[in-house]
């Protein structure tokens, strides 16, 4: 039987809740995001997301099942599957073209954007980049190879059958490599004819569809030199693996980690808060040192070991080349067909 005291107490709580719907709303807020798996996902789930949930009094629903864009495409624009989309830059451009994400995240929405390097908010970025990797050349140190200094070193005849890159239609590192071939052997990143010709010259070449597979190929010696991002090599630091990373003198391509908000999100303020949180120096330092990504925030002070290798100064950041994904995506189907024919057989 309910006592008078219990009844009064319960009624008081119910009345207070009804009188303050914002409290109920705040407790029910859920932020839907995408994020990577692996070591990144471990740090996010163990540290970053719980701290964010505690501070912002919300819950975060994180999707790690790639690819995210087709799922976002299939959901209604006014009730999108995600509030914050985390992908590489090429996919953000696809989404922006389809009206699935915002054009820019500015310091007005996320104050820490004021402290990022120019590359993180350049005209080659939609949304805001929170980290970048440098795409260069990974190589075996036990095969008597000199440390590569140029992208042209990948074409060394000694590396026939032992050089590696990516299946261009499905991997943005492969797409970056193709554009870089246009720059090295032709008039620039958009010189596709020169790029196709150079690609033909790289045969025989082993192609994989994701960076984790390239890491395995390098570690097993299946390839002696391959296109890879610095993080994919530096993460084996201290494990006595005969692999190293080289930044070619012509520059490294940027592999940006980009966050963006969906226009139809019902929790936009929370979404901006999340992006701001990800750009905080302490969050940036934790993730940068955890997965060897170069932070976007200029104020981040990394430990010496990481600072020496990652892009943490204006001078080092100047070596980054950002592709024009809007241009690339517009002709992707033609490029896919052409490179498939070149590399088949």
């Amino acid at each position: 039987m309910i006592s008078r005291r219990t009844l009064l107490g319960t009624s008081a709580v119910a009345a207070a809740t009804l009188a303050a719907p914002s409290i109920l709303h705040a407790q029910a807020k859920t932020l839907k995001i995408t994020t990577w798996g692996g070591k990144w996902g471990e740090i996010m789930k163990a540290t970053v997301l719980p701290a964010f949930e505690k501070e912002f009094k919300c819950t975060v629903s994180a999707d790690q099942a790639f690819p995210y864009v087709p799922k976002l495409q299939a959901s209604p624009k006014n009730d999108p599957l995600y509030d914050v989309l985390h992908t590489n830059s090429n996919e953000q451009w696809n989404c922006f073209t389809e009206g699935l994400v915002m054009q820019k995240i500015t310091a007005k929405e996320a104050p820490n954007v004021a402290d990022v390097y120019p590359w993180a908010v350049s005209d080659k970025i939609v949304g805001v980049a929170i980290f970048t990797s440098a795409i260069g050349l990974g190589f075996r140190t036990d095969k008597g190879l000199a440390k590569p200094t140029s992208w042209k070193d990948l074409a060394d005849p000694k590396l026939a059958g032992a050089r590696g890159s990516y299946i261009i239609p499905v991997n943005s590192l492969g797409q970056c490599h193709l554009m870089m071939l246009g720059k090295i052997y032709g008039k620039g990143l958009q010189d596709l004819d020169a790029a196709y010709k150079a690609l033909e010259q790289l045969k025989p070449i082993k192609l994989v569809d994701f960076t984790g597979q390239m890491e395995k190929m390098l570690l097993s010696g299946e390839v002696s030199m391959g296109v890879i991002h610095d993080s994919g090599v530096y993460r084996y630091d201290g494990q006595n693996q005969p692999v190293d990373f080289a930044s070619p003198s012509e520059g490294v391509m940027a592999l940006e980690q980009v966050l963006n908000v969906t226009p139809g999100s019902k929790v936009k303020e929370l979404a901006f808060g999340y992006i701001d949180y990800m750009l905080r120096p302490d969050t940036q330092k934790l993730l940068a040192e955890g997965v060897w990504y170069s932070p976007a925030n200029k104020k981040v002070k990394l430990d010496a070991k990481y600072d020496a290798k990652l892009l943490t100064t204006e001078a080092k950041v100047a070596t980054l080349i950002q592709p024009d994904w809007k241009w690339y995506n517009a002709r992707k189907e033609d490029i896919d067909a052409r490179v498939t024919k070149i590399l088949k057989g």
Partner: protein
Amino acid sequence: MAVASRPSPIAWLLAPALLLFVLFFVLPFGVMAMMSFYSGNPVTNPNAFLTTRHYERFIFDTAGIFHDALWSTLRIGLITTVVSLLIGYPLAHWMARMQSRLGHALVLMAVIAPMLTGIVVRTFAWMTILQDKGVINTLLIDWGIVSKPLPLMYNEFGTVVALVHIYVPFMVLTLTGVIGRIDERLEQAARSLGAGRLRAFVEVTLPLSLPGILAGSLLVFALSISAYVTPSLMGGTDVLTLPMLIAQQVGTSFNPNFAGALGVVLLLVSLAIVVAYNRILARLSGEQGLA
């Protein structure tokens, strides 16, 4: 007054299976087929319009890769099916005729064992065996038999090897049941009438096991032509199949409409092959409608 006929209890038992079939095949396929005739997603994009351009793109193939991909898909499916049958039939026959229950159980476990690990794991295992620095090439080079690695992977050969390993159990399990139900005395009768072991097999056992061959072949063929992971990992630049193209269109070109058209094309071509195969086997066995 006529009594309304009631569905039999068996029909009700079929209802869950029918519901699953409608929910997980008919409905998704219907959506996919519908999407293939739209320029975009009509649910999220009010400007999407009806079009046949995705089919025209495939049919005219100005890119020069789609017809190759279809032929490559079917070729890999057919080769995998034939090799699986050649490996699976003797094994299934041996299992079906095995007297020892323990022996039968042990062989059955050996056949099923590969199915207990995921396709990705099995494919990676094949990669460590067949790649240039893999077990086979390393041994051959160390023993001085070859001077440079044999091309065992990153081509159709490696793809078929891995697919056969993955799908042979399906062929064996299907055939074992059918061969086990063939009365052994028919073969013995043929032999007592003067037929040799081979002739008795060819004229008695083989025709009677045709339903099993048909079912097993269709199963392996269907699984092979829809395989994505294994051709992607084992095929390198040499292999491009329709499932790989479909995945590309959905996952990286973000064009589900063209992916839908490719899916419909693959299904229609496969159905045509299945019907033709069914008819040929029916004619060979003197029966109609084996499947």
